[in-house]
């Protein structure tokens, strides 16, 4: 992960996103107007959060298999940055919602589900804070992390589809085609998702490196 090329890739994709995100062609829709461009900024926050949560889950499982404390550090820091992305997604969503749906926090199943999900993850950090012993903390929080992931994903992906939601792509079983995007938007949206995921991983690796160094310093 200390290689540089993917960091340049992330920067390039992000620049592409910003440029074509603000200047590219988008479908003309009532109420949404230009805010449809937020699909390039608000939605990738959630995709980035999901990707980081999956990474966190992978390292939690790895920790339970091998018991290496480094894997625990990876898991925590990925979860940490995932929550930051989630909060950014939440804030941007409430600004967007205020000017299109008429309320910053409408009673929408997807918003409620994500609130619950973020609280479940918050409990993960509370749980970690309540243990002194390092191995015990790591083992229990790894188990809880698996539980948190397994409850977060159905909450956000499945439950809103069972009812109706203001968010497109919910209610019934539509695929990606229902996101109100045309092909020129997809040309920006997919690179945007890639870019934000890579930025998230980049920040996480910085945090992980700090934690690993701190461990070394404490050992000496």
């Amino acid at each position, binding site marked *: 992960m200390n290689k540089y090329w993917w960091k340049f890739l992330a920067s390039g994709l992000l620049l592409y996103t*910003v440029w074509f995100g*603000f200047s590219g062609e988008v479908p003309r829709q009532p109420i*949404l*107007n*230009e*805010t449809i*461009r*937020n699909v390039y*900024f*608000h939605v990738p*926050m959630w995709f980035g959060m999901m990707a980081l949560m999956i990474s966190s889950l992978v390292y939690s499982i790895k920790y339970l298999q091998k018991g290496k404390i480094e894997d625990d550090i990876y898991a925590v820091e990925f979860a940490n940055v995932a929550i*930051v992305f989630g*909060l*950014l997604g939440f*804030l*941007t969503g409430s*600004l*967007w919602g205020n*000017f*299109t749906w008429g309320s910053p926090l409408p009673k929408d199943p997807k918003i409620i589900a994500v609130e619950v999900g973020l609280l479940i993850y918050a409990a993960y950090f509370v749980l970690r804070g309540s243990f002194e012993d390092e191995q015990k903390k790591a083992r229990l929080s790894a188990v809880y992390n698996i539980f948190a992931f397994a409850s977060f994903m159905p909450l956000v992906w499945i439950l809103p589809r069972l009812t109706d939601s203001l968010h497109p792509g919910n209610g019934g079983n539509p695929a990606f085609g229902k996101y109100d995007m045309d092909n020129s938007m997809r040309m920006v949206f997919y690179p945007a998702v890639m870019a934000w995921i890579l*930025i998230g991983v980049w*920040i996480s690796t*910085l*945090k992980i490196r*700090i934690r690993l*160094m*701190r461990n070394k*310093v404490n050992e*000496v």
Partner: protein
Amino acid sequence: MKIISILFFVLLQQVEMADSLRQNGKIYVVAGVFSIITLGILGYLFFLDRKIKKLEEEIKEK
């Protein structure tokens, strides 16, 4: 006649509302969203920077 002229006057007048974010096809909502993300990530980077600085000082002391 007087009522009609008052009505006319009211219709001609623009109603002042706080709609600066709704102008220009709401492009400023997009700018706001992007600013929130940028601020959030920059804030996080500053927080990280402080953590690294603390660690560096600790290493120096040892």
